[in-house]
């Protein structure tokens, strides 16, 4: 046996086969290399790069500066382009796609007006930390600065409202820049990255070599929390008698929702979420307090006010959350976990800062806390009882009516009919706050809403983006008639691609949230908030080729929703709701969050937050 193994001829045979297979392999890789080194046009490089980034959908609108890119696109059937009807629709759709999937959204627009039309969307994504790569056309490099046709200094315009932006000046830099853009957009605290593509860069040629990873010496992200700081945090948690967790969008972005639930359970800490955090902790969980802040629940706001330890996770103490900063968690020690160091101690000073990815830091904290067993038993009882009492005293509620549709009722019915499994996009204003209060989100990435910037017109395109990513799921846009009209043209996009998005308009014939402020704080002087002059939305939907429904009476709500769900394509349902209905609780601007205006307790109320704390 040994001899045979050592037989030189056998060895040579063996080597020969290895060599030949190696040769074949190297031959094949040389073909690849050849193809990669073969000169490609800038347009080809853009699409090749996007293919390598795994991009399946791109939302865009063509124009002169990007016409070469669109021409080349016809050779890339693996990338599906969604033609929107306004560039703002493109970026919001990419945003909705990114929020619902966690992947980087991509949009492509032309120079000048195409580029300026996406600025609102760039800022929206920047404020909410959403990964998007925006490709904008630009006039040729030799024309930049000459006030050429459809020229806009989009790099200058978006400098402070994007995570980063690039003007590509040479076709040779194109592939590397696109790689950098995707890397920056999707890592650390995610955000929009804009890449400006002058026409001559797109038409020029260069060898194509796509780098796997780029090293950026000015860009480092800390993902693991400092062990010393984690230890300090654990010490605070062990000491605390009245702790509260306040989590935001960072929980969704990091995918740390399971860890959040585990931490809350093993340490028996009640949880409140920001608007962007909703879905990061199940709304039907006994430890859930509801949303906090300006329109937060009584339980959440009172728990924050009375807590002795606040654990902020992936949230940035936004003014809509804190109200008057001095009155926010006034007697609490604060632990703040965030991936962005500049979020820490920005609005108020924290005691234990932990820079890191929420998921990583939480799993470390869980490991440590497990060593302490049922430490909470000794102290937690009275606090949970107190918080439970808050929830019972003033649950989020509204008065049911037999005559007029209550907007909250519509949202509850949507929740019931979709079994809480739908993806919900919202517009901005009362519709958004009612959705946050009355749709019980149990899974992450099911609420798509513009929180930081509060962009009206966000919901419909975002719903379109999400529906593309999840063709089998029910996607609703809960809208107001004001916001809906800001990007109503995207109905044409939904119809063109047969995306069965359901738009539920809570039509109160006014800009409801502003009207609510005018009623409460401006002596009912309703300055320019009436939208009584409006189209017939059902007919409008039909004109676009979608289905249109209308409901005026509470009894019609459920049949209307059922019918909408049975229709294959996009549907607009115009619910004419009670125009006097307001969002409560409400913290007036400049007040502490315990200074809520509450809805008056009424006879026929619906409890929404079921709080039965485990003892």
């Amino acid at each position, binding site marked *: 046996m040994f001899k045979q193994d050592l037989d030189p001829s056998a060895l040579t045979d063996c080597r020969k086969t290895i060599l030949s297979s190696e040769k074949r392999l190297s031959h094949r890789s040389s073909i690849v290399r050849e193809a990669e080194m073969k000169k490609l046009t800038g347009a080809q490089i853009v699409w090749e790069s996007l293919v390598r980034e795994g991009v399946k959908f791109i939302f865009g609108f063509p124009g002169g500066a990007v016409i070469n890119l669109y021409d080349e696109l016809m050779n890339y059937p693996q990338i599906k382009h969604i033609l929107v009807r306004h560039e703002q629709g493109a970026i919001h759709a990419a945003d909705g796609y990114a929020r619902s999937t966690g992947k980087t959204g991509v949009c492509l627009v032309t120079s000048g007006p195409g580029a300026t039309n996406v600025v609102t969307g760039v800022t929206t994504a920047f404020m909410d930390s959403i990964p998007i790569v925006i490709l904008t056309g630009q006039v040729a490099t030799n024309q930049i600065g000459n006030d050429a046709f459809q020229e806009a200094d989009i*790099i*200058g315009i978006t*400098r*402070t409202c994007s*995570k*980063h932006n690039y*003007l590509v000046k040479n076709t040779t830099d194109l592939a590397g820049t696109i790689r950098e853009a995707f890397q*920056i957009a999707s890592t650390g605290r995610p955000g929009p990255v804009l890449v400006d593509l002058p026409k001559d860069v797109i038409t020029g040629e260069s060898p194509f070599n796509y780098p796997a990873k780029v090293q*950026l*010496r*000015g*860009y480092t992200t800390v993902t693991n929390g400092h*062990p*010393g700081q984690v*230890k300090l945090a654990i010490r605070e948690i062990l000491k605390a008698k009245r702790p509260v967790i306040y989590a935001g969008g960072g929980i969704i972005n990091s995918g740390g929702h399971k860890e959040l639930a585990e931490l809350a359970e093993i340490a028996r800490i009640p949880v409140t979420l920001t608007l962007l955090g909703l879905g990061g902790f199940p709304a039907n969980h006994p430890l859930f307090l509801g949303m906090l802040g300006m329109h937060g629940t009584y339980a959440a706001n009172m728990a924050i006010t009375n807590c002795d330890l606040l654990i902020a996770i992936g949230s940035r103490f936004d003014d809509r959350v804190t109200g008057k900063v001095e009155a926010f968690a006034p007697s609490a020690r604060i632990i703040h976990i965030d991936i*962005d*160091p*500049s979020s*820490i*101690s*920005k609005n108020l*000073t924290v005691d234990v800062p932990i820079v890191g990815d929420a998921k990583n830091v939480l799993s470390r904290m869980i490991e440590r806390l497990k060593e302490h067993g049922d430490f909470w038993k000794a102290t937690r009882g009275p606090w949970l009882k107190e918080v439970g009492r808050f929830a019972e005293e003033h649950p989020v509620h509204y008065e049911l009516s037999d005559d007029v549709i209550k907007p909250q009722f519509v949202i509850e019915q949507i929740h019931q009919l979709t079994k809480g499994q739908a993806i919900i996009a919202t517009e901005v204003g009362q519709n958004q706050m009612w959705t946050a209060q009355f749709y019980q989100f149990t899974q992450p990435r099911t609420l798509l809403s513009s929180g930081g910037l509060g962009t009206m017109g966000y919901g419909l395109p975002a719903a379109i983006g999400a529906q593309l990513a999840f063709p089998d799921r029910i996607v609703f846009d809960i809208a107001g008639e004001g916001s809906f009209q800001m990007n109503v043209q995207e109905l044409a996009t939904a119809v063109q691609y047969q995306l069965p998005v359901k738009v539920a308009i809570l039509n109160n014939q006014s800009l409801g949230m502003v009207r609510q402020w005018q009623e409460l704080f401006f002596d009912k002087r309703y300055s320019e908030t009436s939208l009584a002059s409006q189209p017939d939305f059902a007919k409008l939907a039909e004109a676009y080729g979608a289905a249109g429904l209308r409901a005026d009476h509470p009894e019609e709500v459920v049949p209307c929703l059922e019918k909408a769900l049975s229709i294959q394509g996009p549907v607009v349902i115009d619910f004419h709701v009670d125009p006097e209905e307001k969002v409560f609780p409400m913290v007036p601007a400049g007040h502490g969050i315990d200074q809520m205006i509450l809805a008056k307790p009424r006879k026929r109320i619906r409890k929404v937050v079921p709080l039965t704390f485990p003892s």
Partner: protein
Amino acid sequence: MKNTISILVENKPGVLARIAAMFSARAYNIDSLAVAETMDPTVSRITCTAVGDKLEIEQIMKQLRKLIDVIRVINFTTANGDFITREMALIKVNAQAKNRVEIMRTSDIFRAKIVDVSHESLTVEVTGDENKMNAILELLKPFGILEIARTGQVAISRGSKRLIDRQQVPIKKPGRAKKPQQNKH
């Protein structure tokens, strides 16, 4: 308080605009600014002075670090260790015959140079820290200052430490060496 901040940035077009835009978008003030290439042509060094309370300056530092093109930032005013600052100014002084000697003597005291002369004026070149600049200006004022061109502050740390090197490790005090071990558990 005035803070002297040094920033190493990628030497790319638009980087200065990025930094200036961050300051203006977040309503921070830059008092002075000086920019030039370093020994490494891919890196530029920006020195700026900014006024603000502790929290504000901390935010400025964090926001600067957050910029992708910023490689390293140091606030000399709050960092450990001593540092040197210098400014340069060209001061055009009204110089009638009777004042000429006096102006030149004042310049000598400040080790400033006369770099241009005309029948009615002398131009003085002076370098030094902020206090020295203010002092010479104060002394030249009575003669009548016609025009002044002054640079922003530049700053560098004393000793062999360089800004481009990795984060400077604070010097360990004796007896504190045990602490990191405790953190392991």
